[in-house]
């Protein structure tokens, strides 16, 4: 551990940290396009360590897979519980606990369970465990967070000792892909029946490279190496990973710089990112990601319900400035909601379609022309932002300035943090709100996973965007990749040209590791893949 005695420099930094990210009111005149080197791997470890300390952005609410659909929960769970399929660090889907996934009829998925896999307690994995784990999503009282992928499931049954058959109400390719996320995570049958599964007292029983060790509520969660793990290629290098729960960003950055914590994933650039980048005791890696920053549309009437107005605003935006001002230069501008990382099949088709779309760069002249065509509306557009969130505040200021330059009146409505979540779930909370900001991510490498939000009657189709409903249904039922890619690019075309939601910037994974460790997965699949298995000493 290197310590530097620089209290004076420390004071200056502290004062800078209190000021938060530098506020630039003047957006730079079209910054150069952001070229980022995004990774999917880090240098392999030379040897394992006895203990690695890792920070989570907050304490997991639970490790119950059916309610693990958020950063801290999945970061920990991904090392312990494996799914039927596996999402690899470079965004491909491979067999996992299922050796084979077959689709004998459009509405059935048959999973052949891998032989020779044991739970941490030594009991073999069978179809009974898989069926019990999947069935938990079908019980409304258990409150799965993965209902988007299970809404089409009619029944799950063990159709053989090592075979599970899932019957769907309608054909759905996304269901099968979701089996590569925590939605397809398998716990033992005995644990699946536990009321307190995934709590500090209840614990877990899975098959992954790390076992649930001890969870001291409020303090730490330890996971320990499973020496009997079936997949030798992914066997854990280090003996123990201890997760801490430092929620305060400044404190987390301090703990990383002092070496008390070896690493952390950030889903948004912390205010102290510059300090981490300049740290002499560790380094920052940016990883490929499925996460993006977007302006969600909620307007069913008024100017923002007019696609031409949305196009005008989108064209007038300087996304490079957003990257620079709001995300400290980490977030590449995007022209579509689902970026290149989503192209898990038929890459050429997606790439061609992407090139044909309007670029993500600014075009003020064209924007003004579009606004005139839309009848130069005078009614203001209301954008809701989350209180005390710098990303929201700064992006909103940029958009407001852009609107003024165009001749669009934009009003900002601040919603307190604890009520912001209601915008997603409660139509009443969205009254009088035309648009609101959000980070968003799909879970699997298929752009369709993002565009399904525009299904008619979908809970997140806030503005009731109607144009792609039929195509989404067709695409979800289309097993042939080429035919599906054709449908999905068509959907993407409409959604993008109408600016159903406004794509802004891609948000890479920000991984910090101390010089003591290396080998963590820096890309988005860390949420579902045993990213700590390769973690060890340089």
């Amino acid at each position, binding site marked *: 551990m290197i310590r530097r005695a620089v209290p004076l420099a420390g004071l200056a930094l502290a004062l800078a940290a209190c000021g938060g990210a530098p506020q630039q009111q003047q957006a730079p005149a079209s910054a150069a396009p952001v070229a980022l080197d995004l990774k999917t791997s880090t240098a392999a470890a030379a040897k394992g360590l006895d203990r690695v300390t890792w920070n989570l952005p907050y304490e997991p609410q639970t490790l119950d897979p059916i309610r693990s659909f958020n950063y801290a929960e999945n970061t920990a769970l991904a090392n312990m519980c494996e799914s039927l399929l596996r999402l690899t660090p470079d965004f491909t889907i491979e067999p996992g606990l299922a050796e084979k996934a077959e689709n004998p009829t459009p509405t059935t998925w048959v999973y052949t369970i891998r032989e020779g896999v044991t739970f941490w307690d030594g009991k073999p994995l069978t179809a009974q465990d898989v069926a019990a784990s999947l069935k938990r999503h079908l019980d409304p*009282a258990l409150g799965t967070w993965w209902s988007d992928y299970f809404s089409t499931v009619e029944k799950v049954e063990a159709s053989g000792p090592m075979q599970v058959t899932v019957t769907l109400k309608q054909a759905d390719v996304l269901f099968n892909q979701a089996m590569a996320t925590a939605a397809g995570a398998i716990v033992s049958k005995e644990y699946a029946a536990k009321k307190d599964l995934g709590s500090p007292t209840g614990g877990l029983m899975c098959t992954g490279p790390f076992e649930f060790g001890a969870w001291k509520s*409020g303090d730490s969660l330890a996971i320990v190496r499973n020496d009997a793990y079936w997949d030798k290629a992914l066997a854990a290098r280090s003996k123990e990973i201890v997760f801490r729960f430092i929620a305060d960003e400044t404190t987390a950055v301090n703990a990383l710089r002092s070496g008390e914590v070896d690493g952390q994933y950030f889903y948004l650039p912390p205010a102290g990112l510059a300090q981490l980048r300049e740290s002499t005791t560790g380094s920052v890696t940016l990883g490929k990601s499925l996460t993006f920053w977007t302006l969600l549309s909620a307007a069913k009437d008024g100017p923002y319900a007019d696609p031409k107005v949305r196009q005008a605003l989108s064209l007038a935006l300087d996304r490079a400035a957003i990257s620079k001002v709001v995300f400290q230069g980490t977030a590449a501008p995007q022209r579509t909601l689902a970026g290149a990382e989503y192209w898990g099949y038929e890459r050429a088709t997606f790439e061609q379609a992407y090139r044909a779309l309007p670029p993500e760069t600014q075009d003020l002249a064209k924007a003004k022309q579009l606004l005139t065509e839309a009848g130069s509306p005078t009614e203001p557009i209301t954008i809701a932002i989350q209180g005390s969130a710098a990303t929201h505040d700064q992006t909103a200021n940029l958009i407001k300035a852009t609107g003024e330059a165009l001749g669009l009146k934009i009003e900002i409505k601040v919603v307190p943090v604890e009520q912001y979540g209601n915008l997603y779930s409660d139509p009443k909370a969205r009254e009088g709100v035309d648009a609101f900001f959000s980070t968003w991510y799909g879970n699997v490498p298929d752009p369709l996973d993002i565009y399904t939000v525009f299904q008619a009657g979908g809970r997140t189709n806030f503005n009731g965007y109607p144009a792609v409903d039929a195509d989404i249904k067709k695409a979800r039922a289309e097993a042939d990749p080429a035919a599906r890619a054709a449908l999905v690019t068509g959907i993407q075309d409409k959604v993008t040209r109408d600016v159903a939601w406004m794509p802004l910037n891609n948000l890479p994974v920000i991984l910090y590791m101390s010089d003591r460790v290396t080998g963590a997965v820096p890309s988005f699949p860390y949420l579902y893949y045993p990213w700590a298995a390769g973690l060890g000493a340089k």
Partner: protein
Amino acid sequence: MRFLLKRLAGLAVVLLAASFLVYGLLYLVPGGPMAFLLGNRSGTPEQIAAIRAQYHLDDPFLLRYLSWLGDALTGDFGSSLVYRQEVAALIGSRVATTVLLVIYATVLISAGGIAMGLLAGLRGGRVDTAIGVLSSLFLATPPFVIGVLLAIVFAVGLGWFPVFGPGEGLLDRLYHLTLPAITLSLASAAFLARITRASVREELNREHVETARARGFAERHIVRRHVLRNASIPVVTVTGLNIAGLIAGSVVVENIFALDGLGSLFVRAILQRDFAIVQAVVLVLVTAFVLINLLVDLCYSALDPRLSR
């Protein structure tokens, strides 16, 4: 004895009122725990209905409060909505950290504040001025600024103390809690120093002190017998009130130093509308508050028999 019984009856009434008030307030605040039970992106109507029924979220207010009260009287404080764990377990593991932090800070406040106050009051002159300036500085700086500065200088910069966490075992815990306790105590210590100084000054100018001086008693004897004894009454009051205030102040400090105390749990529970946790923490805090006040009163009667009735 009668005095104690009276106080305990009073405590019960206060607890009942506080629990009703907090329950009612939480009930009135917009936004429920649903978002935390289902996440922002999911929740079919059937799911929402099932969960509302499971947690009795649709029962009328009074019914919910009374059923909570009934359970609480039998010692069952329910379980957390969000964490699905027994409240007793969640709180139990966190009480130790907060109690230790508050005791540590109290010791620092009492020792530091009273020593500074006596020094300023008895010495006067330049010492008095210097202590006055210092205490103004401590009083004016918000605890989160002090905490961040201490962490940057003494933890990250010099590496003398850990940046975060509560530690394990008593010595390690005290070591971990040093910076948080200093953060928590500076403002209160400064306040106590001022109060001590003022009451020492006041006592020094009293008639009986003048008389004692005229009679030729030694200064040390006068200070001990006449000044300190009488000056200590306001000091005890302020210390007692301060400890109660520390419990609230610990929320900020626990956040800065990532300590798993009651404060951080409490704030999160309020944000997540986790009724059971909020209620239980409030009861613990109110009880602590009342007991500390009782302790202060007992100290009074020890110091000045005339005050006890």
